């Protein structure tokens, strides 16, 4: 019965309440979540934040669980992890608790495995990972990134392969991996987070403005779920905090990027989290700055001077079966990501 499944809704907090709200509660146990964005958009940082957060006690939004971190792109950023523990725990749990815990405890409960090739990674998925999961303590598994070894044909003997064969084999690998993960997520009561890269898209948009989610260029995109609908979802309240977001976002996504690995992968995940960044200025900040300079011209038509620009970041819930689409502007500091809201003057 549906109402009996109420207790199945267990979430790992990201450590920030507004980001959690944007995602519907955080990262849901039993789900397959994708974090996608361009290079340096903060995907690994977010995952490190989740890896710490998952270990916190339930009172603080964690699940007191262990974490598996699969790393395929370069060395695991252990220093960043080490430096994030205290500030994040301090922010989420307060000073007393933060002082009472030892950062190395957090580092010990994260099992890191680094794989330089696809074969070793798949072998681990068949043997090592289920063994780790079967201890029953793992609540979160992060794969950073799922795209690294699957995007291009790196093994020598396959160089002569046609693209069709490559894509077909890749689809098959993704599907069988996905099926395995879905079972494990349910059986071992844990969440899976996959980091994916973006790829360039060169073709045009549709005539009627529809899109395949995450899979096309979007030249005329305005914010999903923004503005004109009359519903009173909490997500629109989140968005309407600044009316300026729609134009900034539209400009952001005209750069024609789409998540890698194609539609096969998009159908395997439950939730897609996109991370964007852009140099710009919130309207309210610009207004303040230009008022300070005694300049009363219309901000909407004037480009802010470059010395005032800073890098702004967003986390977006692109799709999810358990929460409506929503975006949250965030800042990144030594404690990880937290939301930011601009007060309209």
């Amino acid at each position, binding site marked *: *019965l*549906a*109402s009996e*499944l109420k207790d*199945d*809704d267990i979430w790992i907090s990201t450590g920030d309440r507004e980001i959690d709200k944007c995602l519907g*509660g955080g990262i*849901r146990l*039993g*789900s397959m979540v994708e974090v996608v964005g361009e290079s340096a958009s903060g995907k690994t940082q977010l995952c490190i934040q989740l890896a710490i957060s998952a270990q916190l006690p339930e009172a603080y939004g964690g699940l007191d669980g262990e974490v598996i971190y699969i790393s395929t792109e370069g060395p695991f950023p252990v220093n960043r992890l080490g430096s994030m523990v205290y500030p994040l725990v301090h922010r989420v749990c307060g000073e007393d608790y933060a002082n009472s815990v030892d950062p190395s405890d957090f580092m010990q409960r994260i099992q890191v495995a680094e794989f330089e090739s696809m074969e070793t990674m798949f072998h681990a998925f068949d043997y090592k990972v289920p063994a780790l999961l079967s201890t029953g303590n793992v609540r979160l598994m992060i794969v950073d990134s799922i795209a690294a070894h699957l995007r291009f044909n790196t093994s020598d003997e396959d160089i002569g392969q046609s693209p*069709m064969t490559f894509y*077909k084999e890749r689809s*098959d690998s993704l*599907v*069988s991996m*996905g*099926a395995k993960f*879905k*079972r494990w997520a*349910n059986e071992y009561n844990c969440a899976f987070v996959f980091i994916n890269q973006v790829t360039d*898209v060169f*073709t*045009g*948009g*549709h005539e*009627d*403005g*529809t*899109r*395949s*989610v*995450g*899979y*096309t*260029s979007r030249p005329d*995109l*305005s914010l*999903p779920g*923004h*503005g*004109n*609908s*009359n*519903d*009173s979802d909490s997500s629109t309240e989140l968005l309407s905090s600044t009316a300026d977001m729609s134009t900034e976002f539209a400009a952001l996504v005209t750069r024609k990027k*789409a998540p890698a690995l*194609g*539609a096969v992968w*998009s*159908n395997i*995940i*439950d939730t*897609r989290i996109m991370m964007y960044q852009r140099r710009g200025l919130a309207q309210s900040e610009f207004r303040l700055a230009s008022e300070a300079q005694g300049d009363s011209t219309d901000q909407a038509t004037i480009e802010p001077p470059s010395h005032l620009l800073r890098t702004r970041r967003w986390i977006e819930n692109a*799709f*999810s*079966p*358990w*929460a*409506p*689409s929503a975006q949250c502007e965030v800042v990144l500091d030594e404690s990880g990501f937290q939301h930011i809201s601009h007060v309209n003057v």
Partner: protein
Amino acid sequence: MSRSVLSLRLPVYLQTKLIQNGYHTVADFDESPLAEDLSHFLTQSEVRSLASAAQAQPPAHSAWFIRQQARTRSYFSTRLRQLDALLGGGGIPLGCLTEVVGEAGGGQTELCLRLCLAARLPAAQGGLGIDSVYIDTVGSFSYCGAVQAAHRLCTSQPERLTDENGPELSSSLVTSLLDGIHVFRVYAAHELMALLYSFDQIASHIAQVGLVVVNTISWPFLASFTGNIARRQVLHAELAHLLSQIASKHKVAIVLVSQAKSAFGRSNTPSSSSMDGDVWTRVAANRMSLQRRPDGGFKIALTASTMHPSGEAFINDI
């Protein structure tokens, strides 16, 4: 000339068992001395279904009879004005299959939840007060998602469906709506098939079931037979036939969500064709496609139907 075992209306696995054990025609097992041998490899219920299948003649109905059936068919409103209009004003028909083709994140789960809830509403509000079976093959169902769907359903109506005047839905109303949804989680194709083959038992346990939703029908076959399209298609065909039988025998509406085909190399074209081809469409009374729009609404199109002309509509929220 006795009837071949293959011509009987039996599940394929049962036919295979019979043939493997040397029974090729009905005459082979009709004779009583041999009947005891059957129990060596068949269960009691299988022997019974064998007996009834052997005696049954394929039915033929007059067109008039079929029209009478169509006239007495029940419908339940989806409570989405444009979608009901697309479907000819009545909503989703019982006793028929409806296919919904959707892409990743296209809103299929929301639509499935909406249908389960809308079917549960009392007749005064366009529903039929029936229970639904939600077969989840991908892990899409969640209590919080269902609660949100219930809120969207109740607050988007011109007449308030809440029992208080405030916007807050009473939790007992939500529970009574959600109690009508029976969730089954299956992972592999054989689990799905086994579940559906035992639908008779399900229907006897869940008295008021009127709607079966499979979200999605494509995934378990893809996962269990990765790379083996031929095998998948054979099972698809068998399942399509089984689903038709279940729909008409139990007078339930069956809604199948299938995965949209992604055109290789052209990533911009929204696809309203299913990766399973037309196997579900052939047995479905209605086929729809569902896409999420960049500005937040949805586009839902009726692409093929035995009952209504094609059309499309734009919906704000499901």
